[in-house]
């Protein structure tokens, strides 16, 4: 099976002021095959955010390897990691994280802008993404003119626009009421059905249940590694 992402024996240590070492990740290995839909669960402090940051190329492991789409990215520098983020990763955040002064379509365009691609094709791809998440009629709106659900749809469109290897979702329904959260989950499920690899951090069991499988973390290590069916 082709791997969208795989991490091999990854460690992450933080050194606090005063020289205290916090071992956030203590040797984790997971494979994410293409088309996977994984929920990562765990209490706060379990290392799930650290793991997501590493997967998102926002941080580098102290030790271990990270392969993204067949490429080892664990030794890349800041500049190269930025490039990887703009080309191969899509982010969906709990608080949407749209840029306030930009319109819907400009927000969606950002990853392409940082790829250096601002051609007419790029603009068309943005419009395509917007219509896919059902916001074709809101293109020139600003984030504050949209509901939370709509903002999260914009964020999903933005995460998709660069056709990423992996979509990383950090509590994508955390700020939404259950009905809107359900809509967003449907969008993510549809994306996964279309072949997108999705890695999602959540602490809601019913949200995690929508994924193919769940990874539980505790104290910087994997606790269990269950197929989805087992939870039901």
């Amino acid at each position, binding site marked *: 099976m082709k791997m969208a992402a795989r991490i091999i024996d990854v460690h992450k240590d933080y050194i606090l002021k005063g020289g205290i070492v916090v071992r956030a990740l203590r040797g984790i290995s997971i494979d994410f095959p293409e088309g996977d839909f994984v929920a990562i669960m765990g209490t706060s402090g379990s290392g799930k955010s650290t793991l997501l940051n590493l997967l*998102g190329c*926002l941080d580098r492991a102290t030790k271990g390897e990270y392969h993204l789409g067949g490429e080892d990215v664990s030794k890349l520098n800041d500049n190269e990691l930025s490039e990887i*983020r703009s*080309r191969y990763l899509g982010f969906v955040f709990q608080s949407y*994280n749209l840029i306030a*002064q930009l319109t819907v379509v400009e927000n969606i365009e950002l990853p392409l802008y*940082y790829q250096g691609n*601002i051609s007419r094709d790029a603009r068309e791809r943005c419009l395509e993404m917007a219509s896919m998440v059902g916001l074709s009629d809101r293109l020139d709106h600003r984030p504050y003119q949209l509901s939370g659900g709509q903002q999260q749809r914009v964020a999903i469109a*933005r995460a998709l626009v660069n056709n990423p290897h992996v979509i990383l979702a950090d509590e994508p329904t955390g700020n939404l009421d259950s009905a809107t959260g359900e809509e967003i989950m449907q969008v993510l499920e549809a994306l996964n059905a279309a072949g997108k690899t999705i890695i999602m951090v959540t602490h809601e069991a019913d949200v995690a249940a929508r994924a193919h499988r769940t990874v539980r973390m505790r104290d910087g290590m994997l606790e269990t590694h269950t197929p989805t069916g087992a939870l039901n």
Partner: protein
Amino acid sequence: MSSRFWQTLRLGLKSLLLHKLRSGLAILGIFIGVTAVIWLVAMGEGVSYQAQQQIKDLGANNIIVRSIKPPSDATRGGGFFMAYGLLRDDYDRMVANIPTLLQAVPMREIRKEARYLDKVTDVRLVGCTAKYLEINNLRMSRGRFLSDKDLERADNVAVIGDAAAKVLFPYENPIGRFLQVEKEFYVIVGQTEDKTPSGGIGGSLAAQDYNLDVYIPLSTLRWRIGDMVATSRAGSREGEVVQLSQITVTVHELAEVDATADIIKTLLQKFHPVVDYAVTVPKELLQQAQVLQMMFNLLLVLIAGIALLVGGIGIMNIMLATVTERTREIGIRRALGAKQRDIVSQFLTETVVLSATGGLLGVFFGFLCHPAIVGTRAVMRQLFPDVIASLPSNIQQLEPRIAPWSIIAAFLISVGVGVVFGLYPAQRAAKMDPIEALRHE
């Protein structure tokens, strides 16, 4: 690439428009600085242009030799008559011995009272030749100036200065009237135009006001008044014997000026054991004035530069606040693939847009320098006539002259200020840890 630049610029403008007041204040600082540079330089240029014009009036090809009074114990002759200064022989020697000489114009001046009927005024009685008009850039408003014939015949004719004419002949045409100086009467044959008094330039040339002059032929002055001028002061009589007050030597070429001045000095040294003369070279004065102006301009630019510096610090302050405020935005952009240099160029673009806008506004207002200063002076003259009247004439008549280089320099400096003061906040933004930045509330 260039479309990307425009995109960056457009997004930068958008962010700036989000905080109109803040951006406006940042612009104001630079705007004031740039306007200050242009205005101050324009005023400096105006002042020095006046000075240079006055020196040019003296004639760059001229060498001016004046009599000066030496310390009283070192004079020729004895008794209470003090004899000093240029001699008619000096004049003859110059004409005979200087090959580069185009012309030499001798002149003798004495302070006298001039009368017409019951009106009296103090004037500068100038004995001179027909050339005097031309070398002093005087113009006639009525009648004619002294002619060679007047000199030959030592006629009692006079040409009167504008201000003197206004005092003595307030309601009539002075031409043909008789002007009385001491016991002699002179027929007035002409009146000169009003001429702005020149400021003093250097030690040997005092400020000159040609408007209270009365010109008579040099020969007439010699016969009617003579070389000796007696003044009685506090019971004792004092006298001075001066043959010529000034000789203005003109040479053919500018290049001959320095050598000719040296010849003149050598000639005079021989016959004047005591230095009772001064040789002034307007060309040198001009060069001195130009050096002085450069230093003056430098000083003004320095002052204005401080204004720009303050503006730059203002911009930096605002950009630092902006960066802090937009930490989360920076985190989002980094997560979406912005490189550090993308963040730097984003914030740097914003700063440069601010400072360049201030610069452009400053340049625009810089061009309004002339009307602004003339207008302010007019208002001040209405409100505080005494204050204005007490100012030196070169300030009263100051005409600012905008220097093209100051416009370009001020604008470039403003952009430079944007880059210099924008770099630190921009780098600070770029160096942020994206994870920390994303977590920022």
